[in-house]
């Protein structure tokens, strides 16, 4: 549908601030002075302590919240317009599938809302089921699947309308570590196949490092960006997880999160675990 | 037949906050709506000159209530006596049955489907038979109707509360090496209390309904039910509505008493209910 054109950035965030309950005693400043530009095809993770506003920032991009100051452009458009144009798909911490629909029907729901006809929807949903390796599960009910499988369905659903942009709010947060790593691998593969731009909110440093081109580190009260750490790991595969550069990047992100100035990545703080 | 489930209450889960309508919220909107509704009722009936045998004005209902106050109050006492005494007896029987079910699990298996099926029946239709057994003028027949109606929801919910305890808690008690009695006292009874009170709320409303419906089938005069039917038959609708109003009050008062009891006995449920 909307393939992000390479000249406009996928997302431009300028001077965004967010104040909840403004003017009332329970006023909370969730975000201040956020500037971030995401290029098409980039994978960006938002990481930070609870309450740093990383989810809020993503919800602003997704037009689920309206910022109290600043400007956001998604594919060069107003976020609301981008939402109405189905420019992005969103996945949440819970799969949030509808119990009363089959797996296929869940994936087809966004397409139904876009008034696609049935034949087209079915073709698309079987493509997506192949993509997330659930080809045999289309007729099942979401609650018959494991947590990891449900999350894959949710990702397929987010990808249904072939959006150029994926917004993912801790999608693997509720999964066990093994499933989580497998899902990360799948996500990397899917992103490579679809060329999607991704904004990924997470609590996990290794996850952020493994997935991202750039890790955006945020701090709480008030929520702001303290660091943007590029990760140069090249093509990801299972060996990446044991690569010294991977550990070095993890250390860099961890220190950035602790508020220490990010040291230059050197081989010295890599750990040899073999 | 076999798919008949237990009697349903509005509150499917014992901890539902619905039992405290408006708590923590402003009482003003419902009051405004109430006042507007009563005023609109009064005005509409006057303006459109609706005959009073159709819908009497609120003011004439109040007037009828004050002129027939002695009769209606006496009727409320009689109906209230039947409802409350039947409720108490029914609850005692139901709780006793539920306790037996924790002792003898086969009883739970046997009684639950029965209770569920019976709860689906219009039990008040038993009233004519009870009138034949105990005599129509005595209150006993009507008390029996109330008892029959009250038993099922209280039994089903209480038994559920006694039996559906967390396995962890039972296992914990086993590690202490204590017997069934201690498990009943420390685990099952506290677990059952919220279920019990939920069912008691349903039962208190049902008791008033059962008493009045039993009165519609005949029996003693001068009860709320007979005042309503007689007044309606004589086209004294203002008086009938006045008696209905008292029946409503009776229902609300009984319910309120149960709510007070609930807060006294299970204070730990309050925080949850306040949500």
């Amino acid at each position: 549908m909307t393939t992000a054109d390479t000249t406009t950035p996928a997302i431009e965030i300028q001077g965004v601030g967010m104040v909840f309950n403004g003017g009332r005693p329970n006023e909370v400043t969730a975000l201040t002075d956020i500037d971030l530009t995401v290029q098409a095809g980039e994978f960006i993770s938002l990481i930070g302590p609870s309450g740093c506003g990383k989810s809020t920032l993503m919800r602003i991009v997704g037009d689920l919240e309206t910022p109290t100051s600043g400007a956001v452009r998604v594919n060069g458009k107003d976020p609301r317009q981008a939402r109405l144009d189905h420019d992005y798909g969103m996945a949440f911490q819970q799969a949030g599938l509808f119990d009363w629909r089959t797996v296929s029907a869940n994936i087809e729901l966004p397409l139904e809302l876009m008034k696609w006809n049935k034949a087209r929807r079915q073709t698309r949903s079987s493509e997506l089921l192949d993509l997330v390796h659930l080809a045999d599960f289309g007729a099942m009910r979401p609650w018959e699947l494991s947590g990891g499988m449900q999350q894959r369905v949710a990702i397929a659903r987010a990808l249904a309308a072939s959006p150029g942009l994926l917004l993912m709010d801790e999608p693997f947060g509720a999964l066990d570590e093994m499933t989580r790593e497998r899902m990360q691998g799948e996500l990397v593969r899917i992103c490579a196949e679809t060329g999607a731009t991704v904004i990924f909110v997470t609590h996990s440093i290794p996850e952020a490092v493994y997935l991202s081109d750039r890790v955006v580190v945020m701090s709480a009260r008030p929520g702001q960006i303290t660091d943007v750490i590029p990760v140069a790991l090249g093509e990801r595969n299972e060996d990446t997880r044991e690569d010294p550069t991977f550990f070095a990047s993890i250390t860099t992100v961890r220190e950035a999160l602790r508020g220490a100035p990010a040291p230059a990545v050197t081989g010295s703080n890599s750990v040899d675990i073999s | 037949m076999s798919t008949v489930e237990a009697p349903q209450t509005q509150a499917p889960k014992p901890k539902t906050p619905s039992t405290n309508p408006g708590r923590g919220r402003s009482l003003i909107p419902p009051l405004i709506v109430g006042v507007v509704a009563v005023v609109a009722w009064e005005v509409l009936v006057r303006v459109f000159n609706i005959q009073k045998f159709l819908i009497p004005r609120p003011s004439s209902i109040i007037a009828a209530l004050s002129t027939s106050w002695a009769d209606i109050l006496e009727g409320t006492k009689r109906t209230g006596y039947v409802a409350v005494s039947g409720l108490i007896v029914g609850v005692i029987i139901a709780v006793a049955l539920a306790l037996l079910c924790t002792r003898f699990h086969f009883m739970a298996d046997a009684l639950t489907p029965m209770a569920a099926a019976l709860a689906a029946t219009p039990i008040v239709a038993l009233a004519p038979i009870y009138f034949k057994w105990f005599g129509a003028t005595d209150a006993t027949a009507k008390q029996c109707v109330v008892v029959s109606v009250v038993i099922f929801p209280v039994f089903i919910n209480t038994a559920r509360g006694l039996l559906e305890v967390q396995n962890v808690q039972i296992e914990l008690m086993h590690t202490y090496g204590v017997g069934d009695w201690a498990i009943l006292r420390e685990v099952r009874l506290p677990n059952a209390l919220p279920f019990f009170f939920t069912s008691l709320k349903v039962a208190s409303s049902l008791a008033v309904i059962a008493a009045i419906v039993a009165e519609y089938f005949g029996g003693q005069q001068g009860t709320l039910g007979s005042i309503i039917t007689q007044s309606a038959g004589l086209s004294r609708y203002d008086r009938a509505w006045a008696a209905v109003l008292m029946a409503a009050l009776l229902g609300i008062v009984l319910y309120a008493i149960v709510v007070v009891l609930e807060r006294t006995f299970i204070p730990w449920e309050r925080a949850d209910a306040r949500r």
Partner: protein
Amino acid sequence: MATTAPTFLQKPVDPARSNSGRSGPSALSRFARRTVFIIGGIVAVALIYTAVKAMGHATGGTWPFTSMPLPFSTDDVTMPPVMDIVLRFGQPQRTGDPKNLTMWILEAMLFTFREAFVGFIIGIIIGMAIALIMLRTRWLERGVMPWVIVSQTVPLIALAPVVVAFGNQIKVPLFSWQQWMSVALIATYLTFFPVAVNGLRGLKSPTPLALDFMRTNAASGNATLWKLRMPAAVPFLIPALKLAATASVVGAIVGEISAGVRGGLGRLLIDYSAQYLSDPSRLYCVVIGAALLGVLFVALINVTDLLLMRNRPREAR
């Protein structure tokens, strides 16, 4: 989920199986078990009834080993023998009547069911409409909902005689108001209240996450209603409908008695009650018919429930 029916026969869910739906054989065996227990229960009631009669007969109407009289008489008029009641179903309603009693009772059941069902359906429609309006209008919800909830504690059925009398006076253009419609009106308002309460609760039950999802997909209000809120409301509505089904039957019977409507169970109850001394078994037969109608009506809701919820996880049922 909040609406799980209180069936404690379902022992605490085995975590290993909690993800599997309703498995065929266990559902079937539960069905068989329940049927056996219900039949066993009916037999047990009949046996106890017969035993009480035998005891009264043996002691001459007192508690055993005392001189305290039983609170009721156990003679064959007050308590006709079980076999008399069973056989009575196959006999004519009165001597010379070509139709047997079973036919009379079945017709009365059908008649009462029609009143109750028509009122029930209209009650659902109005109740859902009100729930939808309250969903859209917050001030109305805050103003009206407390009253609807209070109505649940009030013996609304007390209004039945008044409603019936009121119905008798209605002159609707283009259509003649019939008395059974007044009776249906009782079933309507008895259904309306629980449906409005639980309907609203169900419509508001979708999680913020599900609502966010619909929003990110630019779903219209209508789409959100039909594809999310309505399906989510079903498990909340079913308990209300079961409650309303039983209440509708009671309401219809009471309405028939108050209005003197002919043809339904209420009328048979009154008639057979009046002629009790000459033919006691008949009253028992019609009471059994009334019980059966209630059970069948609720069973109808259960079948609807199974159909609507067949694809949902067991925990949500």
